Protein backbone atom coordinates (compact mmCIF):
# COMPACT_ATOMS: atom_id res chain seq x y z
CA UNK A 1 0.00 0.00 0.00
CA UNK A 2 1.05 3.60 -0.61
CA UNK A 3 -0.24 6.31 1.70
CA UNK A 4 0.50 10.03 1.64
CA UNK A 5 -0.75 12.63 4.11
CA UNK A 6 -0.23 16.25 3.15
CA UNK A 7 3.15 15.54 1.65
CA UNK A 8 4.96 18.57 0.22
CA UNK A 9 8.23 19.40 -1.48
CA UNK A 10 9.35 22.98 -1.79
CA UNK A 11 12.53 24.05 -3.60
CA UNK A 12 14.42 27.28 -3.35
CA UNK A 13 15.13 28.75 -6.75
CA UNK A 14 17.37 31.84 -7.03
CA UNK A 15 15.16 33.35 -9.76
CA UNK A 16 11.67 32.14 -8.83
CA UNK A 17 11.98 32.09 -5.03
CA UNK A 18 10.25 29.18 -3.29
CA UNK A 19 8.82 26.67 -5.77
CA UNK A 20 6.07 24.41 -4.43
CA UNK A 21 6.60 21.37 -6.65
CA UNK A 22 4.30 19.24 -4.48
CA UNK A 23 2.03 20.96 -1.99
CA UNK A 24 0.08 18.92 0.53
CA UNK A 25 -0.81 15.83 -1.48
CA UNK A 26 -2.80 13.06 0.18
CA UNK A 27 -3.91 9.79 -1.39
CA UNK A 28 -4.08 6.09 -0.73
CA UNK A 29 -3.20 3.34 -3.22
CA UNK A 30 -4.25 -0.20 -2.31
CA UNK A 31 -2.75 -3.56 -3.27
CA UNK A 32 -4.27 -5.06 -6.44
CA UNK A 33 -5.09 -1.56 -7.62
CA UNK A 34 -3.62 0.85 -10.13
CA UNK A 35 -3.65 4.37 -8.77
CA UNK A 36 -3.23 6.99 -11.49
CA UNK A 37 -1.59 10.37 -11.11
CA UNK A 38 -2.88 12.40 -14.04
CA UNK A 39 -1.35 15.76 -14.83
CA UNK A 40 0.35 17.89 -17.44
CA UNK A 41 4.13 18.10 -17.70
CA UNK A 42 5.51 19.96 -14.67
CA UNK A 43 2.40 19.25 -12.56
CA UNK A 44 4.49 17.61 -9.84
CA UNK A 45 3.93 13.92 -10.68
CA UNK A 46 7.60 13.00 -11.02
CA UNK A 47 8.56 14.94 -7.89
CA UNK A 48 5.85 13.08 -6.00
CA UNK A 49 7.24 9.72 -7.18
CA UNK A 50 10.77 10.84 -6.26
CA UNK A 51 9.49 11.61 -2.74
CA UNK A 52 7.83 8.21 -2.52
CA UNK A 53 10.97 6.47 -3.73
CA UNK A 54 13.09 8.49 -1.22
CA UNK A 55 15.28 10.11 -3.88
CA UNK A 56 13.99 13.40 -2.42
CA UNK A 57 13.06 14.18 1.20
CA UNK A 58 9.67 15.78 1.88
CA UNK A 59 9.57 19.36 3.16
CA UNK A 60 6.49 18.49 5.20
CA UNK A 61 3.80 15.83 5.49
CA UNK A 62 4.13 12.08 5.68
CA UNK A 63 4.15 9.13 3.34
CA UNK A 64 4.53 5.43 3.71
CA UNK A 65 5.22 2.74 1.15
CA UNK A 66 4.54 -0.92 1.92
CA UNK A 67 4.20 0.14 5.55
CA UNK A 68 7.55 1.94 5.74
CA UNK A 69 7.84 5.66 6.39
CA UNK A 70 9.71 7.36 3.53
CA UNK A 71 11.47 9.78 5.90
CA UNK A 72 12.75 7.26 8.39
CA UNK A 73 12.98 3.93 6.56
CA UNK A 74 14.39 4.88 3.18
CA UNK A 75 16.25 1.61 2.57
CA UNK A 76 13.17 -0.50 3.41
CA UNK A 77 11.03 1.65 1.13
CA UNK A 78 13.48 1.30 -1.76
CA UNK A 79 13.70 -2.44 -1.22
CA UNK A 80 9.91 -2.61 -1.52
CA UNK A 81 9.51 -0.70 -4.76
CA UNK A 82 10.11 -1.16 -8.44
CA UNK A 83 10.46 2.10 -10.32
CA UNK A 84 10.25 2.52 -14.02
CA UNK A 85 10.24 5.73 -15.99
CA UNK A 86 11.87 7.38 -18.93
CA UNK A 87 14.35 8.86 -16.42
CA UNK A 88 15.54 5.48 -15.14
CA UNK A 89 17.91 4.58 -17.93
CA UNK A 90 20.16 1.55 -18.45
CA UNK A 91 23.94 1.26 -18.45
CA UNK A 92 24.89 1.25 -22.10
CA UNK A 93 28.22 -0.55 -21.72
CA UNK A 94 26.77 -3.49 -19.77
CA UNK A 95 24.97 -6.44 -21.29
CA UNK A 96 21.38 -7.15 -20.26
CA UNK A 97 22.51 -10.06 -18.11
CA UNK A 98 25.28 -8.03 -16.44
CA UNK A 99 22.81 -5.21 -15.87
CA UNK A 100 20.23 -7.44 -14.24
CA UNK A 101 22.87 -9.22 -12.14
CA UNK A 102 24.16 -5.83 -10.99
CA UNK A 103 20.70 -4.68 -9.90
CA UNK A 104 19.96 -8.04 -8.31
CA UNK A 105 23.05 -7.47 -6.18
CA UNK A 106 21.99 -3.93 -5.34
CA UNK A 107 18.62 -5.29 -4.15
CA UNK A 108 20.45 -7.74 -1.91
CA UNK A 109 19.68 -10.88 -3.96
CA UNK A 110 22.51 -13.38 -3.78
CA UNK A 111 23.88 -16.56 -5.33
CA UNK A 112 21.57 -19.06 -7.02
CA UNK A 113 18.44 -17.13 -6.04
CA UNK A 114 19.75 -14.01 -7.78
CA UNK A 115 20.68 -16.01 -10.89
CA UNK A 116 17.23 -17.63 -10.95
CA UNK A 117 15.49 -14.26 -10.64
CA UNK A 118 17.59 -12.86 -13.48
CA UNK A 119 16.80 -15.80 -15.74
CA UNK A 120 13.10 -15.63 -14.81
CA UNK A 121 12.96 -11.92 -15.69
CA UNK A 122 14.75 -12.56 -18.98
CA UNK A 123 12.26 -15.29 -19.83
CA UNK A 124 9.21 -13.33 -18.69
CA UNK A 125 10.08 -10.29 -20.82
CA UNK A 126 11.32 -12.45 -23.72
CA UNK A 127 14.70 -10.74 -23.83
CA UNK A 128 16.77 -13.93 -24.05
CA UNK A 129 17.78 -13.42 -27.71
CA UNK A 130 19.62 -10.22 -26.84
CA UNK A 131 20.49 -10.89 -23.19
CA UNK A 132 24.23 -10.90 -23.89
CA UNK A 133 24.26 -7.78 -26.04
CA UNK A 134 25.34 -4.34 -24.85
CA UNK A 135 22.34 -2.16 -23.98
CA UNK A 136 23.73 0.77 -26.00
CA UNK A 137 22.88 -1.07 -29.21
CA UNK A 138 19.21 -1.75 -28.42
CA UNK A 139 16.07 -0.12 -29.78
CA UNK A 140 13.90 1.94 -27.41
CA UNK A 141 11.43 -0.92 -27.18
CA UNK A 142 14.11 -3.45 -26.27
CA UNK A 143 15.51 -1.09 -23.65
CA UNK A 144 12.08 -0.63 -22.14
CA UNK A 145 11.65 -4.40 -21.81
CA UNK A 146 14.99 -4.58 -20.02
CA UNK A 147 13.85 -1.74 -17.76
CA UNK A 148 10.73 -3.68 -16.88
CA UNK A 149 12.86 -6.74 -16.12
CA UNK A 150 14.99 -4.60 -13.80
CA UNK A 151 11.85 -3.23 -12.12
CA UNK A 152 10.42 -6.63 -11.17
CA UNK A 153 13.73 -8.39 -10.49
CA UNK A 154 13.34 -8.34 -6.70
CA UNK A 155 9.56 -8.98 -6.84
CA UNK A 156 8.57 -5.75 -5.05
CA UNK A 157 5.05 -5.32 -3.61
CA UNK A 158 4.82 -1.73 -4.90
CA UNK A 159 5.47 -0.52 -8.45
CA UNK A 160 5.87 3.05 -9.64
CA UNK A 161 5.52 3.87 -13.33
CA UNK A 162 6.32 7.39 -14.46
CA UNK A 163 5.06 7.89 -18.03
CA UNK A 164 6.47 4.51 -19.05
CA UNK A 165 5.23 4.65 -22.64
CA UNK A 166 6.82 7.97 -23.58
CA UNK A 167 8.72 7.62 -26.84
CA UNK A 168 7.52 4.05 -27.46
CA UNK A 169 5.78 2.75 -30.57
CA UNK A 170 2.24 1.41 -30.34
CA UNK A 171 3.26 -2.24 -30.10
CA UNK A 172 5.79 -1.71 -27.31
CA UNK A 173 3.37 0.59 -25.47
CA UNK A 174 0.79 -2.20 -25.48
CA UNK A 175 3.38 -4.63 -24.07
CA UNK A 176 4.16 -2.21 -21.24
CA UNK A 177 0.51 -1.52 -20.45
CA UNK A 178 -0.28 -5.24 -20.58
CA UNK A 179 2.55 -5.89 -18.17
CA UNK A 180 1.20 -3.27 -15.73
CA UNK A 181 -2.26 -4.88 -15.84
CA UNK A 182 -0.70 -8.27 -15.15
CA UNK A 183 1.09 -6.86 -12.11
CA UNK A 184 -2.23 -5.54 -10.76
CA UNK A 185 -3.71 -8.99 -11.15
CA UNK A 186 -0.86 -10.44 -9.14
CA UNK A 187 -1.81 -8.16 -6.23
CA UNK A 188 0.82 -5.45 -6.55
CA UNK A 189 0.17 -1.85 -5.59
CA UNK A 190 0.75 0.21 -8.71
CA UNK A 191 1.15 4.00 -8.89
CA UNK A 192 0.95 5.09 -12.50
CA UNK A 193 1.84 8.64 -13.63
CA UNK A 194 0.67 9.77 -17.04
CA UNK A 195 -0.62 12.68 -19.05
CA UNK A 196 -2.27 10.37 -21.59
CA UNK A 197 -6.01 10.19 -20.91
CA UNK A 198 -6.60 6.91 -22.76
CA UNK A 199 -3.99 5.12 -20.65
CA UNK A 200 -5.52 6.44 -17.44
CA UNK A 201 -8.99 5.38 -18.58
CA UNK A 202 -7.80 1.91 -19.52
CA UNK A 203 -5.61 1.16 -16.50
CA UNK A 204 -6.48 3.16 -13.43
CA UNK A 205 -8.85 2.03 -10.69
CA UNK A 206 -8.56 5.41 -9.05
CA UNK A 207 -7.22 8.66 -10.44
CA UNK A 208 -5.84 11.78 -8.77
CA UNK A 209 -5.69 14.83 -11.01
CA UNK A 210 -2.64 16.78 -9.99
CA UNK A 211 -1.89 20.33 -11.07
CA UNK A 212 0.69 22.85 -9.78
CA UNK A 213 1.66 20.33 -7.09
CA UNK A 214 -1.89 20.10 -5.69
CA UNK A 215 -4.49 17.30 -6.08
CA UNK A 216 -7.47 18.95 -7.78
CA UNK A 217 -9.71 15.90 -7.69
CA UNK A 218 -9.60 12.21 -6.82
CA UNK A 219 -11.84 9.24 -7.42
CA UNK A 220 -12.59 6.48 -9.87
CA UNK A 221 -13.46 7.41 -13.45
CA UNK A 222 -17.20 7.51 -12.84
CA UNK A 223 -16.79 9.68 -9.75
CA UNK A 224 -14.61 12.19 -11.61
CA UNK A 225 -17.05 12.39 -14.52
CA UNK A 226 -19.98 12.86 -12.17
CA UNK A 227 -18.26 15.52 -10.11
CA UNK A 228 -17.28 17.56 -13.16
CA UNK A 229 -20.44 16.81 -15.17
CA UNK A 230 -18.28 15.90 -18.15
CA UNK A 231 -18.74 12.93 -20.50
CA UNK A 232 -15.03 12.19 -20.91
CA UNK A 233 -11.97 12.04 -18.69
CA UNK A 234 -10.35 14.66 -20.88
CA UNK A 235 -13.19 17.08 -20.20
CA UNK A 236 -13.14 16.29 -16.50
CA UNK A 237 -9.39 16.83 -16.41
CA UNK A 238 -9.60 20.22 -18.16
CA UNK A 239 -12.29 21.39 -15.76
CA UNK A 240 -10.37 20.24 -12.69
CA UNK A 241 -7.14 21.95 -13.73
CA UNK A 242 -9.03 25.13 -14.72
CA UNK A 243 -7.96 24.95 -18.35
CA UNK A 244 -11.47 25.28 -19.79
CA UNK A 245 -11.57 29.05 -19.41
CA UNK A 246 -8.17 29.43 -20.96
CA UNK A 247 -9.21 27.38 -23.98
CA UNK A 248 -12.58 29.11 -24.43
Amino acid at each position, binding site marked *: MVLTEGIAKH*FRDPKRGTVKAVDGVSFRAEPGQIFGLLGVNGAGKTTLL*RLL*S*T*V*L*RPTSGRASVAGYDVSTHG*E*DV*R*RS*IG*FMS*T*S*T*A*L*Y*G*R*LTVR*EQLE*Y*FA*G*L*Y*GLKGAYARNRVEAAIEKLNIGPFADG*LCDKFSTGQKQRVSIA*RTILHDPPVLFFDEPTTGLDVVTSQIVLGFIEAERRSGKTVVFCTHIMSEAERLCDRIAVIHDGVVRGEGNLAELLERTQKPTLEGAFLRLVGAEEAMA
Partner: protein
Amino acid sequence: MIKHIFIKEIRETFRDRRVISGAFVGPIFLMFLFVFAFGTIETTLKKPKAPVIHVVRSANEPAFLTELRSNHALRIQEVSSEEVGQKLLREGKAKLILKLSPTFDEDLAGRKAATIQALYDPGEVLSTIALRTFQEMVNLKNRSALDQTLRVAGIPVEAAQPIVLKTTELTRDEALGGSMLIGMLPYLIVIWAFYGGFSAVSDLVAGEKERTTLETLLITPVKRFHVAMGKFLALSLICLASSLSSLVTVLLIGASGTSLARSVFPNGMNLTPLAVVAILAVLVPLVAFFAGTMLAISAFAKNTREAQTHLTLLSFIVLVPAMASQFIGFTDWAKDRWVSFVPILNSSNAIRSALLGRVDPTDLAATVTTSLLLGAVGIFLAVRLFEREEVLARI
Protein backbone atom coordinates in the same frame (compact mmCIF):
# COMPACT_ATOMS: atom_id res chain seq x y z
CA MET B 1 28.00 -3.69 -1.57
CA ILE B 2 30.94 -1.34 -2.19
CA LYS B 3 32.76 -4.21 -3.92
CA HIS B 4 29.68 -4.93 -6.06
CA ILE B 5 29.51 -1.31 -7.24
CA PHE B 6 33.29 -1.16 -7.67
CA ILE B 7 33.31 -4.22 -9.96
CA LYS B 8 30.50 -2.82 -12.11
CA GLU B 9 32.22 0.56 -12.43
CA ILE B 10 35.51 -1.06 -13.43
CA ARG B 11 33.79 -3.33 -15.95
CA GLU B 12 31.86 -0.45 -17.51
CA THR B 13 34.77 2.01 -17.45
CA PHE B 14 37.18 -0.39 -19.11
CA ARG B 15 34.70 -0.81 -21.97
CA ASP B 16 34.92 2.90 -22.64
CA ARG B 17 37.42 3.56 -25.44
CA ARG B 18 37.93 7.12 -24.23
CA VAL B 19 39.18 5.82 -20.88
CA ILE B 20 41.45 3.22 -22.47
CA SER B 21 42.90 5.88 -24.73
CA GLY B 22 43.19 8.60 -22.07
CA ALA B 23 44.33 6.49 -19.16
CA PHE B 24 46.56 3.87 -20.81
CA VAL B 25 47.36 4.43 -24.49
CA GLY B 26 48.25 8.08 -23.74
CA PRO B 27 50.82 7.50 -20.97
CA ILE B 28 52.37 4.45 -22.65
CA PHE B 29 52.68 6.15 -26.04
CA LEU B 30 53.99 9.37 -24.52
CA MET B 31 56.54 7.49 -22.47
CA PHE B 32 57.82 5.73 -25.59
CA LEU B 33 58.01 9.11 -27.28
CA PHE B 34 59.93 10.66 -24.38
CA VAL B 35 62.35 7.78 -24.13
CA PHE B 36 62.98 7.88 -27.86
CA ALA B 37 63.43 11.67 -27.83
CA PHE B 38 65.73 11.63 -24.80
CA GLY B 39 67.66 8.68 -26.19
CA THR B 40 68.24 10.50 -29.45
CA ILE B 41 69.37 13.70 -27.67
CA GLU B 42 71.64 11.70 -25.35
CA THR B 43 73.23 9.86 -28.29
CA THR B 44 73.66 13.10 -30.22
CA LEU B 45 75.36 14.82 -27.29
CA LYS B 46 77.69 11.89 -26.73
CA LYS B 47 78.78 11.82 -30.36
CA PRO B 48 79.06 15.49 -31.26
CA LYS B 49 79.69 16.22 -34.90
CA ALA B 50 82.77 18.29 -35.63
CA PRO B 51 81.52 21.90 -35.85
CA VAL B 52 81.91 23.71 -39.17
CA ILE B 53 83.94 26.88 -38.85
CA HIS B 54 83.96 29.53 -41.54
CA VAL B 55 87.22 31.40 -42.17
CA VAL B 56 87.47 34.62 -44.16
CA ARG B 57 89.69 33.90 -47.15
CA SER B 58 93.05 35.68 -47.26
CA ALA B 59 95.66 36.08 -50.04
CA ASN B 60 98.17 33.83 -48.25
CA GLU B 61 96.79 31.04 -46.10
CA PRO B 62 98.51 31.15 -42.65
CA ALA B 63 100.24 27.95 -41.56
CA PHE B 64 97.97 27.80 -38.49
CA LEU B 65 94.96 27.48 -40.78
CA THR B 66 96.59 24.64 -42.70
CA GLU B 67 97.22 22.99 -39.33
CA LEU B 68 93.52 23.43 -38.39
CA ARG B 69 92.43 21.79 -41.62
CA SER B 70 94.14 18.57 -40.57
CA ASN B 71 92.33 18.60 -37.18
CA HIS B 72 89.29 16.28 -37.26
CA ALA B 73 87.63 18.11 -34.38
CA LEU B 74 86.80 20.91 -36.77
CA ARG B 75 85.68 21.32 -40.34
CA ILE B 76 86.93 24.45 -42.08
CA GLN B 77 85.05 26.22 -44.83
CA GLU B 78 86.03 29.48 -46.47
CA VAL B 79 83.96 32.60 -47.08
CA SER B 80 84.91 35.34 -49.47
CA SER B 81 84.56 38.25 -47.05
CA GLU B 82 83.67 39.20 -43.49
CA GLU B 83 80.32 40.62 -44.71
CA VAL B 84 79.40 37.31 -46.33
CA GLY B 85 80.34 35.53 -43.09
CA GLN B 86 78.15 37.88 -41.04
CA LYS B 87 75.24 37.28 -43.39
CA LEU B 88 75.64 33.50 -43.06
CA LEU B 89 75.81 33.82 -39.27
CA ARG B 90 72.63 35.92 -39.16
CA GLU B 91 70.85 33.38 -41.34
CA GLY B 92 71.99 30.58 -39.05
CA LYS B 93 73.96 28.94 -41.87
CA ALA B 94 77.30 29.52 -40.12
CA LYS B 95 78.20 29.05 -36.47
CA LEU B 96 81.55 30.81 -36.16
CA ILE B 97 83.38 33.22 -38.47
CA LEU B 98 87.13 33.58 -38.07
CA LYS B 99 89.27 36.28 -39.53
CA LEU B 100 93.02 35.86 -39.12
CA SER B 101 95.11 39.05 -39.24
CA PRO B 102 96.96 39.51 -42.58
CA THR B 103 100.30 39.37 -40.73
CA PHE B 104 99.36 36.28 -38.70
CA ASP B 105 102.38 34.13 -39.60
CA GLU B 106 104.84 37.05 -39.31
CA ASP B 107 103.46 38.06 -35.91
CA LEU B 108 103.72 34.48 -34.69
CA ALA B 109 107.29 34.15 -35.95
CA GLY B 110 108.22 37.57 -34.50
CA ARG B 111 106.80 36.61 -31.10
CA LYS B 112 104.09 39.22 -31.32
CA ALA B 113 100.42 38.56 -30.52
CA ALA B 114 98.85 37.02 -33.63
CA THR B 115 95.19 38.02 -33.68
CA ILE B 116 92.18 35.95 -34.73
CA GLN B 117 88.87 37.81 -34.84
CA ALA B 118 86.00 35.44 -33.95
CA LEU B 119 82.42 36.37 -34.71
CA TYR B 120 79.70 34.24 -33.14
CA ASP B 121 76.03 34.40 -32.13
CA PRO B 122 75.62 34.10 -28.32
CA GLY B 123 71.92 33.36 -28.78
CA GLU B 124 72.69 30.14 -30.68
CA VAL B 125 73.82 27.19 -28.58
CA LEU B 126 75.67 25.57 -31.50
CA SER B 127 77.49 28.85 -32.20
CA THR B 128 78.68 29.00 -28.58
CA ILE B 129 79.77 25.33 -28.74
CA ALA B 130 81.77 26.04 -31.93
CA LEU B 131 83.48 29.00 -30.23
CA ARG B 132 84.38 26.88 -27.18
CA THR B 133 85.73 24.07 -29.33
CA PHE B 134 87.91 26.50 -31.25
CA GLN B 135 88.95 28.26 -28.03
CA GLU B 136 90.20 24.93 -26.62
CA MET B 137 92.36 24.48 -29.74
CA VAL B 138 93.80 27.95 -29.39
CA ASN B 139 94.51 27.27 -25.70
CA LEU B 140 96.27 24.03 -26.63
CA LYS B 141 98.35 25.85 -29.23
CA ASN B 142 99.23 28.60 -26.73
CA ARG B 143 100.07 26.01 -24.09
CA SER B 144 102.32 24.18 -26.51
CA ALA B 145 104.09 27.46 -27.40
CA LEU B 146 104.50 28.33 -23.71
CA ASP B 147 105.95 24.89 -22.93
CA GLN B 148 108.42 25.33 -25.80
CA THR B 149 109.46 28.77 -24.53
CA LEU B 150 109.89 27.49 -20.99
CA ARG B 151 111.96 24.55 -22.13
CA VAL B 152 114.24 26.83 -24.18
CA ALA B 153 114.64 29.07 -21.13
CA GLY B 154 115.44 26.03 -18.96
CA ILE B 155 112.39 26.55 -16.72
CA PRO B 156 110.32 23.48 -15.73
CA VAL B 157 107.00 23.30 -17.56
CA GLU B 158 105.17 22.84 -14.22
CA ALA B 159 106.23 26.39 -13.19
CA ALA B 160 103.51 27.81 -15.44
CA GLN B 161 100.90 25.60 -13.77
CA PRO B 162 101.69 25.57 -10.03
CA ILE B 163 98.22 24.34 -8.97
CA VAL B 164 96.87 21.11 -10.46
CA LEU B 165 93.18 20.25 -10.03
CA LYS B 166 92.34 16.56 -10.24
CA THR B 167 88.65 15.62 -10.30
CA THR B 168 87.12 12.25 -9.40
CA GLU B 169 83.46 11.37 -9.97
CA LEU B 170 81.60 9.98 -6.98
CA THR B 171 80.10 6.61 -7.82
CA ARG B 172 76.79 5.88 -6.10
CA ASP B 173 74.36 3.07 -6.42
CA GLU B 174 71.58 5.23 -7.84
CA ALA B 175 68.64 3.42 -9.35
CA LEU B 176 68.06 5.58 -12.41
CA GLY B 177 70.95 7.97 -11.74
CA GLY B 178 72.62 9.61 -14.69
CA SER B 179 69.48 9.42 -16.78
CA MET B 180 68.18 12.56 -18.45
CA LEU B 181 64.68 11.23 -17.78
CA ILE B 182 65.04 11.54 -14.02
CA GLY B 183 63.72 15.12 -13.98
CA MET B 184 60.77 14.29 -16.20
CA LEU B 185 59.69 10.88 -14.92
CA PRO B 186 58.24 11.90 -11.50
CA TYR B 187 56.31 14.67 -13.23
CA LEU B 188 54.83 12.22 -15.74
CA ILE B 189 53.98 9.67 -13.05
CA VAL B 190 52.15 12.33 -11.01
CA ILE B 191 50.24 13.95 -13.86
CA TRP B 192 49.05 10.59 -15.19
CA ALA B 193 47.72 9.82 -11.72
CA PHE B 194 45.46 12.80 -12.38
CA TYR B 195 44.84 12.65 -16.12
CA GLY B 196 44.21 8.90 -16.06
CA GLY B 197 41.14 9.53 -13.93
CA PHE B 198 40.22 12.69 -15.83
CA SER B 199 38.95 10.66 -18.77
CA ALA B 200 36.72 8.49 -16.57
CA VAL B 201 35.44 10.69 -13.77
CA SER B 202 33.08 12.97 -15.66
CA ASP B 203 31.22 9.88 -16.83
CA LEU B 204 31.12 8.31 -13.35
CA VAL B 205 28.68 10.78 -11.77
CA ALA B 206 27.92 13.79 -14.01
CA GLY B 207 27.52 11.43 -16.99
CA GLU B 208 25.20 9.21 -14.96
CA LYS B 209 23.12 12.27 -14.08
CA GLU B 210 22.98 13.25 -17.73
CA ARG B 211 21.97 9.77 -18.90
CA THR B 212 19.64 9.44 -15.87
CA THR B 213 21.17 6.12 -14.81
CA LEU B 214 22.01 7.73 -11.46
CA GLU B 215 18.33 7.88 -10.58
CA THR B 216 18.05 4.17 -11.35
CA LEU B 217 20.85 3.62 -8.86
CA LEU B 218 19.41 5.93 -6.19
CA ILE B 219 16.06 4.08 -6.08
CA THR B 220 17.80 0.86 -5.05
CA PRO B 221 18.26 0.14 -1.33
CA VAL B 222 22.00 0.90 -1.53
CA LYS B 223 23.38 3.55 0.83
CA ARG B 224 24.70 6.59 -0.98
CA PHE B 225 27.91 6.26 1.00
CA HIS B 226 28.40 2.84 -0.61
CA VAL B 227 27.70 4.27 -4.08
CA ALA B 228 30.25 7.04 -3.49
CA MET B 229 32.87 4.63 -2.13
CA GLY B 230 32.38 2.12 -4.96
CA LYS B 231 32.90 4.86 -7.52
CA PHE B 232 35.77 6.37 -5.56
CA LEU B 233 37.66 3.06 -5.39
CA ALA B 234 37.11 2.39 -9.10
CA LEU B 235 38.39 5.84 -9.99
CA SER B 236 41.38 5.45 -7.67
CA LEU B 237 42.30 2.17 -9.36
CA ILE B 238 42.13 3.79 -12.81
CA CYS B 239 44.30 6.72 -11.63
CA LEU B 240 46.84 4.35 -10.07
CA ALA B 241 46.93 2.01 -13.07
CA SER B 242 47.36 4.91 -15.47
CA SER B 243 50.19 6.36 -13.41
CA LEU B 244 51.93 3.02 -13.02
CA SER B 245 51.58 2.26 -16.72
CA SER B 246 53.94 5.15 -17.48
CA LEU B 247 56.45 3.92 -14.89
CA VAL B 248 56.21 0.29 -16.01
CA THR B 249 56.72 1.35 -19.64
CA VAL B 250 59.94 3.13 -18.71
CA LEU B 251 61.15 0.20 -16.63
CA LEU B 252 60.43 -2.25 -19.45
CA ILE B 253 62.27 -0.08 -21.96
CA GLY B 254 65.15 0.26 -19.51
CA ALA B 255 65.30 -3.50 -18.96
CA SER B 256 65.16 -4.26 -22.69
CA GLY B 257 68.93 -3.86 -23.05
CA THR B 258 68.63 -2.05 -26.38
CA SER B 259 71.00 0.73 -27.40
CA LEU B 260 68.16 3.19 -26.78
CA ALA B 261 67.79 1.88 -23.23
CA ARG B 262 71.57 2.17 -22.66
CA SER B 263 71.62 5.75 -23.86
CA VAL B 264 68.67 6.78 -21.68
CA PHE B 265 69.83 4.83 -18.62
CA PRO B 266 73.65 4.92 -18.79
CA ASN B 267 73.98 3.50 -15.27
CA GLY B 268 71.38 0.80 -15.88
CA MET B 269 68.19 0.13 -13.98
CA ASN B 270 68.73 -0.65 -10.32
CA LEU B 271 65.33 0.07 -8.90
CA THR B 272 65.31 -1.60 -5.49
CA PRO B 273 62.20 -3.17 -3.90
CA LEU B 274 62.39 -0.42 -1.25
CA ALA B 275 62.18 2.24 -3.98
CA VAL B 276 59.17 0.49 -5.54
CA VAL B 277 57.45 0.30 -2.15
CA ALA B 278 58.23 3.99 -1.53
CA ILE B 279 56.76 4.97 -4.92
CA LEU B 280 53.59 2.97 -4.25
CA ALA B 281 53.35 4.42 -0.73
CA VAL B 282 53.45 7.91 -2.24
CA LEU B 283 51.13 7.15 -5.15
CA VAL B 284 48.29 5.43 -3.27
CA PRO B 285 47.34 8.43 -1.05
CA LEU B 286 47.99 10.78 -3.97
CA VAL B 287 45.48 8.98 -6.20
CA ALA B 288 43.03 8.95 -3.26
CA PHE B 289 43.42 12.74 -3.10
CA PHE B 290 42.96 13.12 -6.86
CA ALA B 291 40.08 10.63 -7.08
CA GLY B 292 38.20 12.13 -4.12
CA THR B 293 38.52 15.67 -5.44
CA MET B 294 37.59 14.75 -9.01
CA LEU B 295 34.62 12.68 -7.83
CA ALA B 296 33.36 15.59 -5.72
CA ILE B 297 33.57 17.88 -8.76
CA SER B 298 31.80 15.34 -10.95
CA ALA B 299 29.05 14.96 -8.33
CA PHE B 300 28.64 18.72 -8.08
CA ALA B 301 28.40 19.28 -11.86
CA LYS B 302 25.07 19.11 -13.64
CA ASN B 303 26.46 17.36 -16.70
CA THR B 304 29.69 16.06 -18.21
CA ARG B 305 30.41 19.36 -19.93
CA GLU B 306 30.25 21.30 -16.68
CA ALA B 307 32.33 18.61 -14.97
CA GLN B 308 35.02 18.82 -17.64
CA THR B 309 35.18 22.62 -17.34
CA HIS B 310 35.76 22.41 -13.57
CA LEU B 311 38.21 19.53 -13.98
CA THR B 312 40.22 21.44 -16.57
CA LEU B 313 40.64 24.28 -14.08
CA LEU B 314 41.69 21.77 -11.43
CA SER B 315 44.23 20.28 -13.83
CA PHE B 316 46.11 23.60 -13.91
CA ILE B 317 46.35 23.51 -10.12
CA VAL B 318 47.80 20.01 -10.37
CA LEU B 319 50.17 20.90 -13.20
CA VAL B 320 51.98 23.78 -11.48
CA PRO B 321 53.46 21.88 -8.51
CA ALA B 322 53.99 18.81 -10.70
CA MET B 323 55.99 20.89 -13.18
CA ALA B 324 57.92 22.56 -10.35
CA SER B 325 59.21 19.12 -9.44
CA GLN B 326 61.12 19.00 -12.74
CA PHE B 327 63.26 21.94 -11.73
CA ILE B 328 63.59 21.28 -8.02
CA GLY B 329 66.72 19.24 -8.67
CA PHE B 330 68.48 22.43 -9.77
CA THR B 331 67.92 23.97 -6.33
CA ASP B 332 68.62 22.97 -2.72
CA TRP B 333 64.88 22.92 -2.04
CA ALA B 334 64.71 19.25 -2.93
CA LYS B 335 66.32 18.52 0.44
CA ASP B 336 64.28 21.06 2.46
CA ARG B 337 61.72 19.65 4.86
CA TRP B 338 58.94 22.07 3.86
CA VAL B 339 58.76 20.53 0.40
CA SER B 340 57.35 17.36 2.01
CA PHE B 341 54.27 19.34 3.07
CA VAL B 342 53.49 20.94 -0.31
CA PRO B 343 50.78 18.81 -1.95
CA ILE B 344 51.68 17.16 -5.28
CA LEU B 345 55.18 18.71 -5.26
CA ASN B 346 56.02 16.53 -2.25
CA SER B 347 54.82 13.39 -4.02
CA SER B 348 56.73 14.22 -7.16
CA ASN B 349 59.88 14.96 -5.16
CA ALA B 350 59.53 11.77 -3.12
CA ILE B 351 59.15 9.72 -6.33
CA ARG B 352 62.24 11.42 -7.76
CA SER B 353 64.23 10.54 -4.63
CA ALA B 354 62.99 6.94 -4.75
CA LEU B 355 63.98 6.65 -8.43
CA LEU B 356 67.43 7.85 -7.44
CA GLY B 357 67.50 5.17 -4.74
CA ARG B 358 67.31 7.66 -1.87
CA VAL B 359 64.42 7.01 0.51
CA ASP B 360 64.20 9.33 3.51
CA PRO B 361 61.65 7.83 5.93
CA THR B 362 60.82 11.21 7.53
CA ASP B 363 60.19 12.92 4.19
CA LEU B 364 58.23 9.91 2.99
CA ALA B 365 56.06 9.88 6.12
CA ALA B 366 55.38 13.63 5.82
CA THR B 367 54.48 13.26 2.13
CA VAL B 368 52.20 10.27 2.70
CA THR B 369 50.50 11.94 5.70
CA THR B 370 49.86 15.17 3.76
CA SER B 371 48.38 13.28 0.81
CA LEU B 372 46.33 11.05 3.12
CA LEU B 373 44.84 14.07 4.88
CA LEU B 374 43.96 15.70 1.56
CA GLY B 375 42.65 12.37 0.26
CA ALA B 376 40.40 12.11 3.33
CA VAL B 377 39.10 15.65 2.67
CA GLY B 378 38.44 14.72 -0.98
CA ILE B 379 36.55 11.54 -0.04
CA PHE B 380 34.61 13.38 2.67
CA LEU B 381 33.54 16.05 0.18
CA ALA B 382 32.53 13.48 -2.42
CA VAL B 383 30.46 11.48 0.10
CA ARG B 384 28.78 14.65 1.46
CA LEU B 385 27.82 15.68 -2.07
CA PHE B 386 26.40 12.22 -2.72
CA GLU B 387 24.18 12.62 0.32
CA ARG B 388 22.79 16.00 -0.76
CA GLU B 389 19.63 15.54 -2.79
CA GLU B 390 19.86 18.97 -4.48
CA VAL B 391 23.22 17.97 -5.93
CA LEU B 392 22.29 14.54 -7.21
CA ALA B 393 18.72 15.28 -8.23
CA ARG B 394 19.37 18.52 -10.13
CA ILE B 395 19.24 17.51 -13.76
